[in-house]
Structure formats: structure tokens, C-alpha cells
């Protein structure tokens, strides 16, 4: 059953050192900046973070990395024009990187939520990112075996939540939110609006409430403007 909390600090309470935390967003679209700020303030460290990128500019995930709280990041595209905090930590050997092709990242997260033990993907076959991985030929096509990617917590930004925890997103800010919500033991959501039960049409709900544990309303979320051409 979902808890509706008063502020981001309460929403992220209890995330321990060493936790694996999925953070939604593609670049800054969908990035739950206020939850990340609260996570920084909580002092949790030695985190493994799963995100598509490795932070933009100085806010949100970038600030978490700058604060030295991220031991390891699992992502597809760390290097961007404005990923300077990650770049510095990486070059200093202070952050571990697991690089995963974006579609395999998404499918591994989806597999964790869907109870799939492992799957064969064509993506990455024959490349250095498949080095040492099991492969298989099926019907003349080549595949790499990939395993689910789970997390202790997911921090997700939604557009609207209802008081049961059903979620809808906005435009391309949807990105990783729905699959991360399903892949984490505890899913924490910041939503611009929290509406009464029944106010969301059951046909349009993207994340059913079963995947949501905690909600906090953040009516006007912060975001650094996206630098143009910041990379994939």
C-alpha cells in the first residue's frame, strides 16, 4: 500500500549505504531532481546507481556523483558534454562504470520486473561489450545472454499520481520510469500532482499502483535546462 509523504526527505528515508538505486530519466527529462537532492541530504553513500546517463551539469544525479556517493554506475551513455562530475571521478578512478547498450539496459530492467531469469538479445553481439558473455544462435541469428537488473530502490518522476499510486507521465519524460518502478523492491515517486482515487482514467494509467510504494508531491520540479546536443 502506498504512503503519501510530505516531503522528499521523508520519501527517501531509510535508503542505506551500499544500496542499489535506479534513477529515472533520460538526461534531465524525467530525472527526479528533488528526490536525488533529498538522497544527497540523507547522507547515503557507496551507492550503485542505474540510470541511462551519468549526470548533466551540476544538479540531480550530477550532484550525487559530485558528492562522492556513487560507488558504481550502470548506464549506457555516461559521457556527455556536461557530464563533468562523472568524467572527473571516472578519470580519478573513483567511480566504477558498467556500460550497457541502452536497449539491453532497458530490457534487463524490464526482465527484473517481469520475473524473467535471463534473455538472449541480438544487441551487442560480436562487440567488445559482449566479451566473455554467453552467446547462442537461434534460427540463424546471433544473440548474447543478458541477466535481469534489479534494484533496492527506484526514484521515479511522474506527472500525476493518484492516491493509490497509479501513475501517468508526460511525453518523453516517461522513458525509464515504468520499468524501473517494476524492477525495484521499493519505488519512490515524485509527482507534480497527486489526484484523488478515480481521477485517472483506468485506460490511460501507465504504471499501476502495485509498483509504487511512496509518493511525494513536487509541484514545480527543478531542472537544469538541457544543453543542446548533449549526446545520446
Amino acid at each position: 500500500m502506498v504512503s503519501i509523504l510530505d516531503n522528499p526527505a521523508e520519501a527517501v528515508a531509510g535508503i542505506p549505504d551500499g544500496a542499489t538505486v535506479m534513477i529515472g530519466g533520460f538526461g534531465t527529462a524525467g530525472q527526479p531532481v528533488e528526490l536525488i537532492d533529498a538522497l544527497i541530504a540523507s547522507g547515503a553513500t557507496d551507492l550503485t546507481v542505474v540510470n541511462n546517463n551519468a549526470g548533466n551539469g551540476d544538479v540531480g544525479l550530477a550532484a550525487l556523483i559530485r558528492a562522492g556517493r556513487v560507488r558504481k554506475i550502470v548506464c549506457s551513455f555516461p559521457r556527455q558534454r556536461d557530464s563533468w562530475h562523472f568524467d572527473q571521478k571516472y578519470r580519478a578512478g573513483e567511480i566504477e562504470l558498467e556500460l550497457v547498450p541502452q536497449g539491453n539496459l532497458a530490457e534487463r530492467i524490464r526482465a527484473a520486473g517481469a520475473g524473467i531469469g535471463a534473455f538472449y538479445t541480438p544487441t551487442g553481439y560480436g562487440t567488445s561489450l559482449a566479451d566473455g558473455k554467453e552467446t547462442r544462435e537461434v534460427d540463424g541469428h546471433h544473440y548474447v545472454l543478458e541477466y535481469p537488473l534489479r534494484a533496492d530502490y527506484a526514484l521515479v518522476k511522474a506527472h500525476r499520481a493518484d492516491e493509490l499510486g497509479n501513475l501517468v507521465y508526460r511525453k518523453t519524460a516517461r522513458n525509464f520510469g515504468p520499468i524501473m518502478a517494476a524492477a525495484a523492491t521499493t519505488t519512490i515517486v515524485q509527482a507534480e500532482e497527486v489526484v484523488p482515487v478515480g481521477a485517472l482514467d483506468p485506460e490511460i494509467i501507465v504504471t499501476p499502483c502495485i509498483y509504487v510504494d511512496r509518493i511525494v508531491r513536487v509541484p514545480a520540479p527543478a531542472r537544469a535546462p538541457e544543453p543542446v546536443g548533449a549526446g545520446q
Partner: protein
Amino acid sequence: MTGVTRRGLSTDELAARVAGDVPRGAFVNLGIGLPTRISNHLSPDSGVMLHTENGMLGMGPEAQGDIVDLDLINAGKVPVTELPGASYFHHADSFAMMRGGHLDVCVLGAYQVSARGDLANWHTGRSDDIPAVGGAMDLAIGAKQTFVMMNLLSRDGAPKLVPECTYPLTGVGCVSRVYTDLAVFVIEDEGVAVRELFDCTFDELMRLLEVPLLDRTREGDR
């Protein structure tokens, strides 16, 4: 480019040339960088729908001014617009669409393409580079046809269509056509066929490249 004598197609001419080979009504993903320019040459009545791997089909042109919405960006993280008939979906659904072979055409930039259609476009292989792959490997292998759009020679004059890629691979045998400033190539079972030349002769091309070439410049497009 200023001050340098150049021959062959300009980037915009090349983008227009690729656009001409995108079938009417096709579902297309244009990789970040050069291929993005192709959208400027797709007429609205072509019915071509653009996919962006961060979760949208029916992407419109870049957003400017007041209509910029930071929740609506493309894979290059540039604010874009929504066309009528657009749809949004999450990342697993978006990459399922790509990996499942539903896109008709994907156009990518490249560091190198091999004679067998191997693609290298994600990593220079330099040890001091921070590796970043994004959706490149999914794009390379997912679409019904993967086109490459690039200059035929690198800035230091090295051919980028090569017998074997020396850069780290993005995908194996995935490229079907290579559109360059000097020529259009089709990767066929029998080898690399030259379909079109721009300010360049077949013989010059043979001297430029170490890849055996088939002359198909006199055959109709197919």
C-alpha cells in the same frame, strides 16, 4: 570547410540524397549528428514517421522559443515537437520496437564501415576515452535496413569504408547502404557495389579505397 577545395556532395546535399531513398510512409530513426539533417529533406507529405529511441514515434522538428518543452526531447537531448499521430512509450517498449525489426530504416553516422557491413561508430578505441554507447548498438542491428551517412574520408584523409574495421564494432554485418560525399555504396552478398558517384570516377574510388568494388553505377536503382 572554408578555404578548402572540396568535391562531392555537401552535408546538406548528402542529407537530401539519403532522404530521397527513404520510402514513402517509412518508419525511420535518424541517429544523432549528421543523420539528423535528413529530416529537413523529408517532405511532410512523404508520410515518413520519425522514431526517437527515448520513447516517441511521430517526432516533429526541433522546438524553438516558447514551444520548448524539456519533457519532449529527442535522443540527442534536443527539445523537439510532436506531430499529429504521435505516440509515447517507455524505454523497454521503444527498444523492443527497434530490436524487433519494426523500423524500416535507421540512418547512422560512422567511424568505419567494413566491406561486409560491420559498423564502428561508438568508440574510438583510444584508452583515454570514456566509453559511451547509448542506443548505437540497438540502432545498428534493429531496423530492416541500416544506412550509414558519412564522409568517405576521415579528417586526416583515411578511408572510412575499409576491408575490416579497426575501431571497436557497434554491430556485425548490419549496414546495407553507405551514403558518402563521394559515392553511394550498397553492401551486397557479392561485395561492395558502387551505385552512384559524385564528382568522382569509379577508378578514383578504387584507388582511394582498399575495398574491392563492383561497378553498379550504370544499373537502375532498385
